[in-house]
């Protein structure tokens, strides 16, 4: 049950994030959308490792099956990667703001023609 809820939540986060990325004109909003979508993907991976009535995969945490630890290790990598891409994109937002004094995508693209 929790597994399905988590999957549903992950997919909604993805749709929400990518929708924001496509519909917003402000670069900061676009990055926020992208970040929400990355969170959705991470949640999706964790939800995939879910097992019914499982305990966290730590030694000595009692009887019963443990959740799959591998997806949890994978999302740590994925989170670091997404942090790096976000940080790099934000640096470009800073540069763009300094050069063109706007964060609006249509205006940024017009700035390209000057």
């Amino acid at each position: 049950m929790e597994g399905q809820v988590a999957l549903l939540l992950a997919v909604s986060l993805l749709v929400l994030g990518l929708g924001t990325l496509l519909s917003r004109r402000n670069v900061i909003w676009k990055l926020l959308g992208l970040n929400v979508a990355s969170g959705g993907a991470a949640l999706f991976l964790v939800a995939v490792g879910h097992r019914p009535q499982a305990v966290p995969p730590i030694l000595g945490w009692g009887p019963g099956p443990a959740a799959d630890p591998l997806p949890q290790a994978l999302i740590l990598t994925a989170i670091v990667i997404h942090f790096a891409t976000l940080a790099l994109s934000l640096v470009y937002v800073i540069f763009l703001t300094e050069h063109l004094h706007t964060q609006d995508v249509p205006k940024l693209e017009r700035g390209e023609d000057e």
Partner: protein
Amino acid sequence: MSLGTHLPILAIAVPLLGAFALPIFAKVHKRLRDMWAAAVGAFTCAMVIALAVQVLSTGVVVYTLGATSPAQTVAPGGFPIRITLTVDGMSAFMGLISALVGLASLIYAFQFLKEDQGKPLAMTLFFLLWAGMLGMEYTGDMFNFFVFLEITSIAACALIGYRTWESRPAEAAFKTMALYTVGGLLVLLAVAILYGQYGALNIAYLSSKIGGSQLDKIALGLLLGGLLMKAGAVPAHMWAPDAYGEAPAQAAMVLVANTQASLYGLWRVLFTLFGGVLAAPAVGWLVVSLGTLTLLVAVLMAVLQRDLGRLIAYGAVSQIGYMLLGVGLVALASRPDFGLVAMQGGIFHMMNDAATVGLLMLAAGVVRRAAGTKDLTALGGLGHDLKWTGGFFFLGALALAGIPPFNGFASKLLIYESSFRLSPLLTAVAVLGSILLLAVFARAFQGVFLGPKMREAEPAPVGMLVAMGILAAVILAMGLAPGFFVEHLVTPAARALWEGRDLYLAAVLGG
């Protein structure tokens, strides 16, 4: 322990170490930094070539990380728990392309980058990008592939925005980063879906288990979407002209090799990962139509460009179309002979494209350095001072348009031949694309290099000429003796994808 058994991991680890050690050496002395960069570059190329020789003579090389013996494979019926690097003919071939492009780019970078504009950092990013590309090509693990994909994305975007003192590179880098991240997310989701079903990440193991369920099809769709985005195929091509146009010349040519690494990922997914279940002609038609569309749109856009960098960029995108067309035909092939020809054409074209587009981009870099602009309306008469560069540009333009006896003709002929058997219309579009490309590049050559002398231009330094000379020599060699290259490099690579899936699986999973 001998060096020979550790070739696959060394080819990835050495540039990675080289990348992060380089800024430290740069602090000590400029000479030390350059020597370090040259040593890392030479060592990496040697590793890649030695590995290719090993693969071509003995077959698939498997390297298991963290095992008691790196050559250890999974016992028959067993379950892979470690990350493996799996290098077959196709991986080795792609490694050679990356090594060639990387070497030329590095030689060019020594003289192209300016000291006061962050030269050591650009070299660091280049080595990161190189390591990421080689990693994508050698890995045998889906999540590992995703990680290397993201390493190339980050390094590539940092290089696109290298000229931070202008606004256009930052805009191009931002756009590219957003698209790459979405592409990477799609790949990550596909990996999650596959892991959820089969509990493994190893490509060979997954391939042996995939049964073509509904979820598998979703995963295939996500992988196709993500990798095509990174490869710059229409309709996700908007980032490519900006990125190629704004990145420094030697970085732009590595970006082209990077799109090819994404295409390699696509071939690996289509023919190895889903090789057992891929009977649906829909996928083949999708790839063929996207390829045709890409080449048509890119060529038509190239006609309209007034900026030399963007013109070459659209030329580069159009070549991606030819590769998609060639290999897409394979997925539609009902007869073995024509499938293999199409595969050879598509794969041979990857190497040709890396060399020719790289040469054109480097020549454009020299033009920009000499004249301070890439605007075609403001350029002219540069051939008086840049004789060699003009010659190299001319050679590259002819090869790109597929004029005999150059290499582009050899690979395009294979694509024409195989597409003709499917539909003459496809061949007509492909030939039309080539003719338009020739017209576009002839105009560009005439506009930039011919005509009365307009200004004094500083000739290209020796290092840049050497870098272009290497690529020109490869182009000439492949054009004059295509048979040799097809037989010894392209055919093993094509066979590895076309019928080598069983060998690939057996090499990892044991007899």
